[in-house]
């Protein structure tokens, strides 16, 4: 058994944070994977899978809001908690402290933009041709240009 493992071990299926709860911590995935799920009534909408080095819970920490999604362990994971008070003190002393988090948030916004563009395209296709299955249609030239610009 490794004695040097930091953080806390979570088992498969364990909930780390629950949508709607108030949170005072942010989390860093040290190993394993977690899935981010948005609950809409009885339905679960998977939003993302996060792996080693990625953070979650930062929105509840930066704003005084409740958790926007549930995070559940996808494969046995080790997770480190970051306390709000210490985090905000560090940011106050050194604003560059959040560069890494801003980078991750920027990557997520980029992914969301792609997803929005894809959904808009489906919506447009559907409006132009209600009988067509737009989701299975090949990507349009415009979508490819958006993807290329986002990646660059």
């Amino acid at each position, binding site marked *: 058994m*490794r*004695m*040097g*493992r*930091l*953080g*806390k071990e979570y088992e498969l299926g364990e909930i780390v944070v629950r949508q709607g709860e108030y949170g005072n911590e*942010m989390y*860093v995935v*040290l190993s394993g994977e977690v899935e981010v799920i948005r609950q809409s009534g009885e339905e679960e909408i998977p939003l993302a899978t996060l792996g*080693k*080095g990625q*953070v979650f819970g930062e929105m509840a920490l930066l704003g005084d809001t409740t958790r926007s999604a549930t995070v559940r362990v996808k494969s046995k994971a080790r997770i*480190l*908690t*970051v*306390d709000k008070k*210490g*985090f905000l003190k*560090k940011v106050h*002393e*050194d604003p*560059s*402290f*959040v*560069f*890494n*988090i801003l980078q991750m948030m920027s990557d997520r916004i980029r992914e969301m933009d792609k997803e929005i563009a894809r959904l808009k395209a489906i919506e447009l296709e559907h409006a132009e041709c209600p009988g067509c299955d737009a989701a299975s249609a090949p990507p349009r030239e415009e979508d490819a240009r958006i993807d290329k610009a986002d990646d660059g």
Partner: protein
Amino acid sequence: MCGGIVSESLVQALAVEGIHLPDDVVQRAIDSYILHTNQGNVHIETPHNEKRIATLHRGAGPKGVSKTLWKSFDALLLNLARGEGARVLPARVCDIVWRDKRPEIECRGKEPRPYDLVVVACGVNTSGLRLLENLGFGYRRPQTMQTFITEIMLGRKTIQEWFGSSMHLFLLSNPSIEFAAFIPKGDFVTVCLLGRSIDRACVRSFFKDPAVRGCFPPMWRIPDDACRCSPKINVGEAIRPYADRVVAVGDCGVSRLYKDGIGAAYRTAKAAARTAIFSGVSAQDFDRHYAPIYSHLRRDNWLGRVLFSASGIVKRSPASVSSLLCVTAEEQKLPFEKRRMSGVLWDMFTGSAAYGDILRRSMHPALAASFVQHIVRACDAGLEIVPKGGCG
């Protein structure tokens, strides 16, 4: 060089910055501490029972190690720097001189080379301090205190059985010892004693104390060949730690009183880097952007001295120690945010929070009332304040 604790706040800060301490660098992850006193002990756990503190070896580790099963923390950091594009030159610096208003570094067996900025990050036990003093810009080395550190080889199984993943801290009546800790690592346990006058007799009396003896297997005695040293630690900041194109970070500048030296080095090094990148490398730039962090650590250490003086008074009084134990033990039933004494002790002995913050929390009326109430009870039970005496 053997020591090494990465505090809770630093483990979290590094993780946020994308620096993860691998399992083979961290010797043992700590999830709790046990406070030992002459009146008994108390076990305090971290929030969520999470392993939040990393113990590690610096450099090559303790003397006499035949097989290295770990990676050095220093090597990890140097490799990260290399990965970011830094060129690491493993060489011994012999001299630093001024040439055309630029610092020029001479390494053993190499031609001297001028640099735009020299950041000195050496300890207080090296000749690096002399190099800084010789530059003639007014640098004066920090005040130091002698410590005693020994690395005792007990083996993984024994350490797990006797020390677990807890740090062991001692608040004993011995007035010469300000702070004592056992830090379990892989196969070793590091014993660290800090105080104004720690000598051989003081160390011997510490190991004979029943509270200390109880931490080790029966019949165990400290081996004669254990790796041990009496290094100095920084207990007061350096005067004039920067000039045009030169800055001292970490121990050769300012550290945190008695603990979290790595955390202080991280903060001062980052402040120096931010100054150089976003402002410049002149003395005025360091005045504006480096000095505030430096002064903050210096002021906080002053408050730390107040706290340690208070703990010195508490540990000399059996009634106060008994009260401290009772308050801490009782509050373990409360929600974590209401465990005030535990939080104060945890942060004070692990270096996880600023001393100013700890001092403010230690003066909470509810905590003070509970503490006094238990002192009165302890006095009623026959415990009293003992006079200050010598070592042992």
